[in-house]
């Protein structure tokens, strides 16, 4: 079981689905960002799993995962900075209040 690619992929897709739900359902911008992190991690898990089970990807999977982490770190930095900046203006972290783009 622990030796099967399927198991890891199923795990990753469940994690991704949980992240998706969080992103779509949470009102708090930071919670949404956390959900995004979950989804990124799900992807990472899948990538590493592929790296471990597909001979041609040996080593490459791990490497790509590292890159994804770097990008995720950058994303988190900027995303959180934006959330804080908006929060200063709107006095709320709840995204439904951020609707000024509609006018």
């Amino acid at each position, binding site marked *: 079981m622990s030796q099967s690619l399927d198991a890891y992929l199923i795990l990753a897709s469940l994690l991704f689905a949980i992240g*998706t739900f969080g*992103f*779509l*359902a949470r009102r708090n911008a930071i919670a*949404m960002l956390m959900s995004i992190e979950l989804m990124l991690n799900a992807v990472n898990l899948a990538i590493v799993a592929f790296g471990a089970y597909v001979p041609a990807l040996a080593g490459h999977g791990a490497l790509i995962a590292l890159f994804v982490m770097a990008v995720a770190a950058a994303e988190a930095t900027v995303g959180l900075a934006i959330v804080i900046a908006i929060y200063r203006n709107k006095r709320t972290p709840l*995204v*439904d209040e*951020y*609707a*000024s*783009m*509609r006018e």
Partner: protein
Amino acid sequence: MPFFTEAPAEAVATTGSSLDQLLVIALLALPLAGFGLTALVGRRLGARAWIIAVPAIIVVWLAALYLIYQTLIVGAFGDAGMHFRLYEWIPAGDFHVDVNFAVDALTAVMLIVVTTVGMLVHVYSIGYMAHDPGRWRFFAYLNFFMFSMLLLVLADNFLLLFVAWELVGLSSYLLIGFWYRRRSAALAAKKAFIVNRVGDLGFGLGIMAIWTTVGSLDFGEVFTRLPGQLESGAIQPWMMIGICLLLFAGAMGKSAQFPLHVWLPDAMEGPTPVSALIHAATMVNAGVYLVARANPLFAQAPEALFIVAAVGIFTCILAASIALTQKDIKRVLAYSTLSQLGYMFAALGVGAFVPAIFHLVTHGFFKGLLFLGSGSVIHAVHDEQDMDRMGGLWRRIGITHATMLVGSLAIVGIPPLAGFFSKDEILGESFKLGFVWVWAIGIVVALMTAFYMFRLMGKTFYGPSNVDPHTEPRIHESPRSMTVPLILLAVPSALIGLALGLPPENGTIHHWLEPVFRPLDEALHHGAADYQILGIDGFLLGASVAVAAVGMIVAWRLFGFFRLGPRPALVSSVTGRLRGPYVFSLRKWYFDELNDLLFVRIGGVVARGLWWFDVHVIDGAVNGVASLTQGTGRGLRLVQTGRVQNYALGIAAGLLVVAVGYLIVAR
């Protein structure tokens, strides 16, 4: 060698000598220059604002006298008169109109009246307007009027005539509205112009009809070709009648014939010299002039002439009946003018063109005299126009009284004064040409004329004084610049009938105008019957003098005459017994009320209704399309919540749909 050698095509006429041409141009250029200069620098001239305008008109008068002498006495231009072209005005393909002028007998006769009365009115105005701060405007406008009026009689084609036609209307507008601060003056000016435009509309359409049928607007060509086309069957008789009636519509406007007569009484808001010059002696005659000028056309359309006669005689009695009861001295004279113009049109309508022009001339002098005299009266009693507040003035302002008495006797038709000859010719010809009904109404009007003129004289000059006690001591005769023109006008008013009208129906004026009206005489086939002083003509003459005398005597009895006192009690008992007709006449047959209802009220409702239509229906449709678009956009915008998560949900849903779809299809 003349300057302008081009005469209009087909005019078998002389171009005149260069001196003649120069004088014709001077007739127009001098008043125009006078207008321009006075308008530009007049304000700095102060009390001497007349210094340019009046000499200019005196020179015009002298030049006109020379031209009249050349035309009528010497006969230098032959029967057809002199014609020359200044330049081509409108070159539009096969439509081209020149600025060209003509001087023939009819023009010369018109020049006599226009320049003489014009010159005297100018001189009179020096005194009359001496204390008005706007006198420079007044003299500028007067000069402009002279320019327009002279252009009107000198023009040698219909369109140029139309230009002058409108320009005299403009001068009239400017002069009626001279005291623009008075609302009534401004309204009267506007009314005059707009009512005139109603006539001009017909005139303009008539010109277009002439051009589309003849292809030219020059008098000479039109008058020779149009009757020819009628004969050859190229145009139908009804078209000829239509053209004549359209031209007559213009004449009705300018000469204030029913139903376009409403502007003339209101025009009395203008200064009195203006009333004398424009609204009695010259401009209002333009309609008569137009019909007379177009006599070759009217000769081919007897039905049109019948309508002219009917309108003329109706206006004649309508105006006379109103004049009987008016209280304002100038309004009485204004209605009297209408009535006399009605005579002229009746004469034209029955085919008596020469008597019509003859009456135009005599009327120009005596009505000009009467108006100037009334101005002198108004001046004397300090701008009072209500005859109920005059009376007993004959001792105080002797010259004015004497000259006005001459004028009144002239208009009433007492021999041997001017009006007798011309009016008698009109009535006599009507009867003899078979228009007995015209004659019958004309005789009644003659009676009314005698009555209202001596009612006016009585209320103004005789009986006890009703003048405001404050102004009573300050009544004074007018200055010399005003009385001299009065005297100078009284002379022709008295004598011009004798000079031009003897022997009756074959006088000098008949000889002068015979070439002009030859086409008419030929068409209507009435060779001059012998004048029978002991037969029918003697009877007609006696009848008109008798009714005039009756009218006068009744008026003397009621309103006084010299030392004969008025009988106010009798007057009020008569008006009391005839309450209905009296009020009907006093309110001018309710024409003003009718016009107000028809044009001001109903017109206003229509205009407002259309504006509402414009804003709410047409613009509403435009804005409706806009708001429909906007509404659709607003509806679609609901999808754009601005919330990231809605969009993300959309992405997820879309992804699912695509993937499921793919799976199904791939399966």
